[in-house]
């Protein structure tokens, strides 16, 4: 009757870990990432073995990583946030404006402002989704237009130039500690905190539950609205942080900063094994997905593939990742069937 798998025989924690790593969805894309880096480096050693090459390898995807982590959290709750690109743009411009309009402002305040404004924009999304009970795709499509419009209306044809920003702030964009870019360290810290939270705290697990079956979550008496709003606030705040760092890294901020990042972030999450239908996936996957996406972008020219084909490769990659997920799932269910057959 029941799939009568008796409690598994005592496998050692180490063996468990090994088998977990070997089968984890994330391992596949790590492998792909390593492969790309190796091939690119063989073609052109400076890809990895030059100070700039190494730095850019770590640095370039760091901003997208932040946004992708937030996006993954939202997708896990069976929602989606299309407004992140606009939030990045708005907070990046805000950062520049703060430095221009309030000279001598401490960096901490600027970071705080970016994160809070991002969080507020995320809160608007979350509150609309949670309380008005309307699909996130529609709401965030709307706020994507609205936030971007506000940004363009505010910035007009002004832009923030690198020379408007204090040198120590811009130093963050390229600075390194022990050879590792500051931005990367920041992004990885955020990633670890998010991953720990999702795995070990009740509220983190509840996000998975809500994404897995919202109606059941309601019956369980989970605070569905609060969690959904929390997820959107997190996504907004991380996009806000990414916006601040965008200003630090790129120096110049025009009103189209962060344009199109929403699809990249969703793409990264999907490549990383976060199921678009909610309840499945990890922020680790999304983070590696972000690295894979942008590293491929950088590797293609080195492999002699024309710039113009980059987008096609990215598309193929996304499709490849989801097809792979599907194949693995089918194989898993075949295994279960076979087990049942032999069990009879």
């Amino acid at each position, binding site marked *: 009757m*029941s*799939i009568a798998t008796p*409690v*598994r025989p005592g496998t050692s924690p180490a063996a468990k870990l090994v088998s977990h790593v070997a089968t984890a969805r994330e391992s596949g894309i790590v492998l792909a990432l390593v492969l790309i880096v190796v091939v690119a480096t063989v073609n052109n050693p400076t890809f990895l073995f030059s100070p700039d090459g190494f730095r850019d390898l770590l640095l370039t995807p760091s901003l997208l990583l932040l946004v992708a982590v937030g996006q993954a959290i939202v997708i896990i709750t069976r929602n989606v946030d299309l407004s992140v690109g606009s939030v990045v743009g708005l907070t990046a411009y805000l950062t520049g404006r703060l430095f221009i309009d309030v000279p001598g402002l401490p960096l901490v305040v600027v970071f705080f402002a970016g994160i809070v404004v991002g969080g507020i924009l995320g809160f608007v999304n979350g509150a609309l989704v949670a309380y008005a009970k309307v699909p996130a795709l529609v709401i965030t499509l709307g706020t994507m237009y609205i936030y971007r419009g506000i940004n363009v209306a505010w910035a007009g044809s002004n832009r923030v130039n690198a020379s408007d920003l204090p040198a120590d702030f811009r130093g963050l964009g390229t600075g390194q500690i022990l050879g590792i870019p500051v931005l990367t360290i920041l992004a990885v810290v955020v990633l670890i905190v998010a991953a720990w939270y999702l795995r*070990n705290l*009740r509220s983190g697990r509840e996000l998975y*539950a809500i994404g897995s*079956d919202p109606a059941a979550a309601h019956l369980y*008496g989970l605070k569905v609205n609060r969690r959904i709003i929390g997820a959107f606030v997190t996504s907004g705040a991380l996009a806000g942080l990414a916006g601040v760092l965008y200003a630090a890294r790129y120096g110049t901020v025009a009103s189209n900063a962060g344009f199109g990042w929403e699809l990249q972030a969703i793409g990264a999450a999907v490549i990383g094994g976060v199921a678009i239908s909610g309840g499945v996936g990890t922020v680790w996957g999304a983070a590696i997905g972000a690295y894979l996406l942008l590293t491929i972008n950088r590797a293609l020219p080195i492999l002699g593939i024309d710039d113009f084909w980059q987008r096609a490769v990215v598309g193929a990659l996304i499709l490849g990742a989801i097809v792979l997920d599907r194949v693995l799932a089918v194989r898993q269910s075949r295994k*279960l069937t076979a087990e049942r057959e032999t069990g009879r």
Partner: protein
Amino acid sequence: MADAMDATPAPSDHALELRRVMKSFGPVVALRSGSLVLDRGSIHALIGENGAGKSTLVKIIAGLYRRDDGDFLLDGESVDFASTAQSKAAGIAVIYQEPTLFPDLSVTENIFMGRQPTGRLGRIDRAAMRDEATRIFARLGVALDPDRVTEGLSIADQQIIEIAKAISLDARVLIMDEPTAALSGVEVERLFAVARSLRDEGRALLFISHRFDEVFALCDTVTVMRDGAYVHTTPLADTTVDDLVRQMVGRDVTELFPKLPSTPGEVVLEVEGLTRKGVFRDVSFSLRAGEIVGLAGLVGAGRSEVARAIFGVDSYESGTVRLGGSVLPKGTVRQATARGLALVPEDRRKQGLVLDEGVSRNITLAIRQKLSRWGLLRSSDENRAAREWASRLEVKTAALDATTGTLSGGNQQKVVIGKWLATQPKVLIVDEPTRGIDVGTKSEVHRLLSELAQQGLAILMISSELPEVLGMADRVLVMREGRLTGEFARTDATPEAVMFAATAEAGAAL
């Protein structure tokens, strides 16, 4: 199971009390005046026809709905739950009529979601959680892997997780809304044992079921509801099935299983060597016109899967299905329907109905091609066809465009049956046709099936209720673990023989 009832314990003070509770959904009044008293250390039964308002009452207790009017006392104090979290905190555990699980999460997480044991920094203590789950499963006597995801579990296993969830709450009040509807005899017995031990610990239990044998075997007192209102409460020792039925239906129901005699005609459905790996193997049988064949077995024996495969919802690896002499191609419901096969599926909400559509659209969904003229469909034609079947089956609904999801379970089931009868099938497969249906409706469904058989329809009736199978079928097939393990003529089909074939254990429960 129908052995001696437990002695009724002395009534202690009330754990929970509802007085004249009212609840309406827009124009629909689900509960006019619901009253109920649960005592500590006692198991209370709640019975009533489909749509009587039982589940609505439960949902009010659970804090899922808020009552419009009336009193709700817990330990003598008036309460008003705004969410299920509050009722849980007050010590009320509820098993809902429909299992509600998170398919992507593990069995353990499903049991403890929202109240996992935590350690330092609020970190979830996974080991403790898993141990607790294992302990509960041991108590329930089931072997479920606590680490597997619940996706793909059978309804029975899902129901068991629901029960484990409720037990893990260690609640003072345990409400069970038709928990046995999907369970086999053995599992029902285990559940009853757990329920009795909880009662003996002094907890208050509410048990909702349409099966009188269960009610009499388990419960101490019974409350009857009709049309959203309280009718009567009495100790079970002082009442009989006939009394209860009269109170429920408001009239006498004499014949529960009115099987009409019919003469089997020629063979219309022939199944040969049907095999689907891991699900069923080498299933062969045939069906004659005018014959009702019962397919018995424990839940999970694979009966539904065989039905789905024959009907074309699922594919199969080998074997053939012949309908009216010629082979039915596999995996196409359209072909099967066109050639006169119909299936009333086991899960009416998921498989039978489009809950958000109106009654009329549902009844005509399978005949939409037939109803169209020059490829075009007109609502008036749809409504005419729907009206005919709704009135034949006496569906209780305000209008033909009323959303099917707002009908009671029994009325929903009637809509599904109507939908398939509208296709004018030659062979009808009904899978658990009376699951969760009240006695009145049940007897109507049985009469209907009998009449249809008499008119020459071949019926394959899958049912987990032995009395139903034995009462209705001309012939009984039995499945166990994916194989046909027995075939009995009506006269030879004793409960003992059938249960033996279903379990291969002499003297199995039921």
